[in-house]
């Protein structure tokens, strides 16, 4: 399994990466902005993408749109969103996100959601 985490907060990315690796959920890649995320997605075939909404260069919404409309890929996508961004989360679902988790969250909670999505 290959999982891509996209978020501009390196501490958060590191924390997620550690937890998912610890749970043996696969090889975990990271992108700290939307542009490098798009480049990685072009190069690799991922089984799951976890993305923040607010990132430099391209937002999480643009990234979802890129995966669904440009690449026409059905890779599962989990959106990480801050509280108070309900409208943005709805927009993310409309353009193809599969799940979302509100920040702050525990690494264990995210791992459960990742397992559930990968199982499906």
């Amino acid at each position: 399994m290959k999982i891509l985490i996209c978020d501009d907060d390196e501490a958060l990315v590191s924390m997620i990466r550690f937890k998912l690796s610890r749970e043996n959920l696969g090889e975990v890649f990271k992108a700290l902005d939307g542009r490098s995320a798009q480049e990685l997605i072009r190069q690799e075939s991922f089984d799951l993408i976890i993305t923040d909404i607010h990132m430099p260069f391209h937002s999480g919404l643009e990234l979802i749109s890129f995966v669904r409309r440009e690449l026409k890929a059905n890779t599962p996508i989990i959106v990480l969103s801050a509280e108070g961004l309900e409208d943005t989360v709805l927009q993310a679902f409309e353009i193809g996100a599969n799940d979302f988790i509100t920040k702050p969250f525990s690494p264990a909670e995210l791992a459960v959601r990742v397992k559930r999505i990968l199982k499906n």
Partner: protein
Amino acid sequence: MPTKEMALATKQQKLRTLNIDFDQYTEGDLAFKRELITLLVKNVREFVQSLSDSLSKNSSQIFAEACHKGKITLHMLNDDEYNGIVRELQGDLVNNNFDGSLKRHARRFAEVSEEIVTSLNEEFAKSAAA
């Protein structure tokens, strides 16, 4: 008599009780704990820099964006006073309250940030020695 510089040095080395539940995030892995501490220190430094940039460019947006980006760091630090000052500063900047509470909050924010960084660095050293 302590000099001003000595007083400053003492102040800069002041420790703060960290409320971070490291085990929740590191599961006892000391190498990852050190990696995480390094990134938390980087984020706290970024908060401080973003406030300075916000003030010099007269833009509340810069500090607000840094706080949004570092939301998880603020959550992990779990420091009520620090989180409170961050909220107050965001309000001060939006309301252009430059001569009022902003100065007081900015000063306290700098002090607490420094205490947090010092304490995180101490935690790093303890973890490296373990």
